[in-house]
């Protein structure tokens, strides 16, 4: 008898409310080892809520369903415990924290186990060396904040990396730097490197020009409306808009 396959992340029937309002109304999503998924959808559709529920942020009440990560019940774990078992995130708008430098954040993300050479290498690849000893995110431009988020995520080496709107509010040059770093983190430097899993939230889909994603989903009105080839979905949404897209035949598969 073979042991049944346990996917890395399995979300089943997930319903999430913020206060009185139900934002996610029954989400089923499975992400396997080495897969990168993309979550498309209009603003207010629940994309960020799904990430916050995965992280365990307060204020997001799980009213039904389950989330399992590597076979463990994620809902029983605190935010920091989830991070330590391998869930990492690049926030869309990270807060600035007075007195805590980017260098400290990278060390914390790495669980203290990072040498200066490696830290510096990561920082140079994202062009954040000169920000290392500044208070994290304090006075950072949009692009700098995104690059700093990526530097922390790479230092953490998560099993599953979550990206919240990695291209929002940044210029093309920064999208390219961030996108390349995402690609390296998820797919490795060489073909033989192990792959990590990823879940990318994007409103525009621009980031897909830099990152190879395996599966795309449209989150619309609190439900996953369809799944398909990410580039096809982006093209379809570009032509039809989200509303038409969720009705289209592609998604009926």
């Amino acid at each position: 008898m073979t042991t049944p396959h346990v996917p890395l992340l399995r979300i089943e029937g997930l319903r999430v409310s913020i206060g009185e309002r139900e934002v996610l109304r029954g989400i089923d999503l499975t992400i396997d080892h080495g897969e990168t998924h993309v979550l498309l959808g209009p603003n207010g559709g629940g994309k960020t809520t799904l990430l916050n529920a995965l992280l365990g942020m307060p204020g997001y009440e799980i009213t039904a369903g389950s989330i399992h990560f590597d076979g463990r019940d994620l809902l029983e774990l605190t935010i920091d415990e989830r991070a330590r078992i391998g869930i990492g995130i690049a926030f869309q708008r990270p807060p600035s924290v007075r007195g805590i430098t980017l260098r400290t954040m990278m060390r914390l993300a790495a669980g203290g186990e990072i040498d200066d050479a490696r830290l510096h290498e990561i920082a140079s690849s994202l062009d954040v060396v000169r920000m290392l000893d500044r208070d994290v995110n304090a006075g950072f431009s949009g692009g700098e904040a995104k690059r700093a988020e990526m530097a922390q995520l790479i230092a953490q080496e998560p099993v599953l990396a979550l990206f919240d709107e990695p291209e929002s509010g940044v210029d093309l040059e920064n999208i390219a730097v961030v996108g390349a770093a995402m690609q390296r983190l998820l797919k490795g430097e060489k073909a033989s490197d192990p792959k990590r899993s990823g879940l990318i939230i994007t409103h525009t889909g621009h980031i897909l020009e830099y990152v190879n994603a395996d599966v795309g989903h449209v989150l619309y009105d609190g439900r996953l409306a369809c799944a398909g080839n990410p580039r096809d979905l982006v093209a379809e949404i570009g032509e039809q808009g989200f509303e038409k897209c969720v009705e289209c035949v592609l998604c009926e598969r």
Partner: protein
Amino acid sequence: MRALENPTPAQAARLAEIEAAALAAVDRPAALGPDIDITRFKTVSEHDRVGSIESIERQIRETALMSGFTSDESERSASYFQLDRTPIYERVMAAFDGQVEVMSTEDALRAYPDEMLDKWFWRAVDPGKDKYTALVALHWTEGYFIRVKAGARVDKPIQACLFVSESNVSQNVHNIIVIEDGATANVITGCNIHTDVKEGLHAGISEFYVGKGAHLTFSMVHNWADEFSVRPRTGVVIEEDGTYVNNYVLLKPVKSLQAFPVAKCVGARSRAVFNSIVYGIGDSVIDLGSETQLIGEGSRSEAVARTVSKDRSVVYSRGRLVGKTDLCKAHLDCRGIVASRESTQWAIPDLVSEGAPGAELSHEAAISPIAQDGVYYLMSRGVPEDEAVSLITRGFVNIEIPGLPDALRRQIDRAIEETSADAM
């Protein structure tokens, strides 16, 4: 006043003037802070002098180290150690001979009576200000005199420790620092009490004179106890192109502490900087501030205060900038975290422009909780909640203090770490 045995008529007249001003103030409560019945305390005792720091009792040395006073004199240019009322040790390292002078204020008065009385002794602080200045003027128990000669660049810190080893006493010290024109010095002062001491009073007069183009960084770490009261009175005079930097750190409980040092930027382009880190712990009542008077054209000042109040502590964080000339510029930045529902914190910035329409004075004052989004942010990187709160609190108080010696920086870091870990 017993200081001079055979004063000249002019000297005697000045001493009588000081005494009269003090006598008129013996019952005058301070403008700020809880009133203290000072008649309860007797003055501190005499001790034997020692030949080296090493021969000071180990526990006293270890306590002094907490505020930056080290036995390793290779790291220091000069040392002064006062135990209760006796200066038991003073030494200038050979490399700084002729550049630095260190002695008790009483010895300095005997050695340079005219200079002291004319220029420094009770010239920056008024002996008749309140009962605490009067106490020191009338029942003076030494204190240090430090002079750095013109042009000397003293790159290693000068250290001074004022230590109280008895209970129910008052230590009434009078300290004078003179940094002559073009000289640079870094003075670290620790005020400590023996771990056995519970109740007592430290009244300290400090008069600092920063000459033309001179630079004084004065760092003070206070270690008191639950029943100990502290009333420092400080006046600083800064001449043309001179800079005074005051770093103050209080991380231990105290019964009550009230201090409001006044810096007068009299010279053109002179500058005063105050940095303070204050933890209110237990039932401490702390009323701390600073005033800078911008008198010389182009004078500047910055005051940065970080306060954390815990337990049942009451903390006042004050700051006053007085612009008395056009072309002066000053900023206050006081921020507090109230870490307990039983504690109270006041932030009182105060800006005054006196006949100086060109004065540019500003302040930022804030009292706020530890930002939850910051805590969650750290947690999302794998840091447990209590550790995240402690890290953020530490980051909040750990302001950049330029000119702080590394050793003291490390001690402050360690103390903040311990305090944060204990209290959170």
